[in-house]
């Protein structure tokens, strides 16, 4: 299961899908859920705006899941949320089921790294002192709202 959503992340459905795929051969399930932090590099975050090149993002997530299956022989499922996310809300879930726990952890951690480095999704941090695209090589605040408090 690979999904990009604009509403709440289907965490339960993602974990269930890998558990059902592996069935009784499963010994362990490793899950990662990423959430919006309240601060980043000294800035107080108000919210995040996620956007994507959706068809490619889905294709790239599918490729990552297939690479997990090739490398570890186990199922991987994931979902990513787009749109405006508040502090504390979940943006990504990645789940890997495996007969053995070491492989579950290794494959899940690897898949999260790959999503962050390859999948065409972008986020703009909106902080109390400006907003900017995360990973923007220029990283100048795009807007600097006047503080009224």
């Amino acid at each position, binding site marked *: 299961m690979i999904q990009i959503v604009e509403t709440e992340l289907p965490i339960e459905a993602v974990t269930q899908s890998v558990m059902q795929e592996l069935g009784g051969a499963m010994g362990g399930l490793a899950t990662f859920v990423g959430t919006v932090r309240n601060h980043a590099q000294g800035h107080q975050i108000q919210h995040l705006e996620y956007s*994507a*090149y959706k068809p*490619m993002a889905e294709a790239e997530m599918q490729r990552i899941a297939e690479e997990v299956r090739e490398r570890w022989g186990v199922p991987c499922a994931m979902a990513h949320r787009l749109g405006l996310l508040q502090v504390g809300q979940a943006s990504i879930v990645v789940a890997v089921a495996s007969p053995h726990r070491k492989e579950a952890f290794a494959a899940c951690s690897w898949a999260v790294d790959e999503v*962050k480095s390859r999948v*065409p999704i*972008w986020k703009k941090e909106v902080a109390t002192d400006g907003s900017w695209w*995360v990973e923007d*090589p220029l990283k100048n605040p*795009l807007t600097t709202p006047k503080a009224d408090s």
Partner: protein
Amino acid sequence: MGNPHIYTVLLFAMLREKAGTSINIELPSDETTAPDLLAACAAQYPQLAVWLPHTKIAVNCAYVTLEQPIRPADEIAFIPPVAGG
């Protein structure tokens, strides 16, 4: 010399904010590569130039290599540094 060939490119994130959801880049040939397409873009859309050294190109929903041929009929996208997760 014939008419220039038009490569339509999808934009995202900071590139989209500077030049819209897509741009048309003109090249003399009906087949190009990522470096040539980025060079033509830098000339025709100078407001994007600073980001192009950090931008990857996707064709038909997959990243391309430096040598891979790109044609006007492809779905072409510029992928600035990603930040999913």
